[in-house]
């Protein structure tokens, strides 16, 4: 059962198909108003945010793993 679950999820990922959905979405498309709210956006001000990230990268030794996709209204 666990193996079949993993295979199904792997198949979904491989298909990369639009709307591949063996798993029922538990947050419905009409329940996504909070993620469509601009205050929940990862980068409301992309230019301002990228500048601050640039300050960190210039002054610190660490780098990478910034930027997030996803969320939003989930429309279309």
């Amino acid at each position, binding site marked *: 059962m666990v193996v079949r679950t993993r295979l199904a999820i792997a198949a979904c990922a491989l*298909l990369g*198909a639009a709307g*591949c959905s*063996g798993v029922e979405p538990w947050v419905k498309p009409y329940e996504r108003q909070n993620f469509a709210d601009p205050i929940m956006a990862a980068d409301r001000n992309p230019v301002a945010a990228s500048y601050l990230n640039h300050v960190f990268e210039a002054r610190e030794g660490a780098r990478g793993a910034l930027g997030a996709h996803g969320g939003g209204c989930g*429309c*279309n």
Partner: protein
Amino acid sequence: MRLRSLPALLLLAAGLTAGATAPAPSPAPDFSLPARDGGEVRLSSLKGQVVMINFWATWCGPCRKEMPLLEQLQAKYGPLGFTLLGVNVEPDSAAATAWLKSVPVSFPILFDTRNAVAESFGVQGMPSSVFVDRAGRVRYVHRGYQPGDESQYADLIRSLAKE
């Protein structure tokens, strides 16, 4: 969370792309929702008409874009026995009421605040348009909105109106 076998998965994947899909005709789930003007609208009372149920929300960009075009469809095909129902899925109707002041529409706007109707129709994307024929059966489901889809809507309405 239900897991389906791979063949069904593939069929589902094919069927869930944005665009119109035509499942086998089945009776549309009946519902009764409060309307913007204060009354109530029951779907079964519209039997004999072609009905397009458009699920929308003010927070959904493509939904807002689509609205004026839906009004044009209502104006053009209303005389053929066609009604659009704009079902707003937001828990708080205040945003919809306010927004509609700037985009007036003549077709009924219904408030599905508890999302029971959206759930019964299995809405899979925003916006979603369900086309119901004169016998009250679901004939087409259109998911999403891209500019140009309104001509698809017009084709579907015309073919259903002819029946």
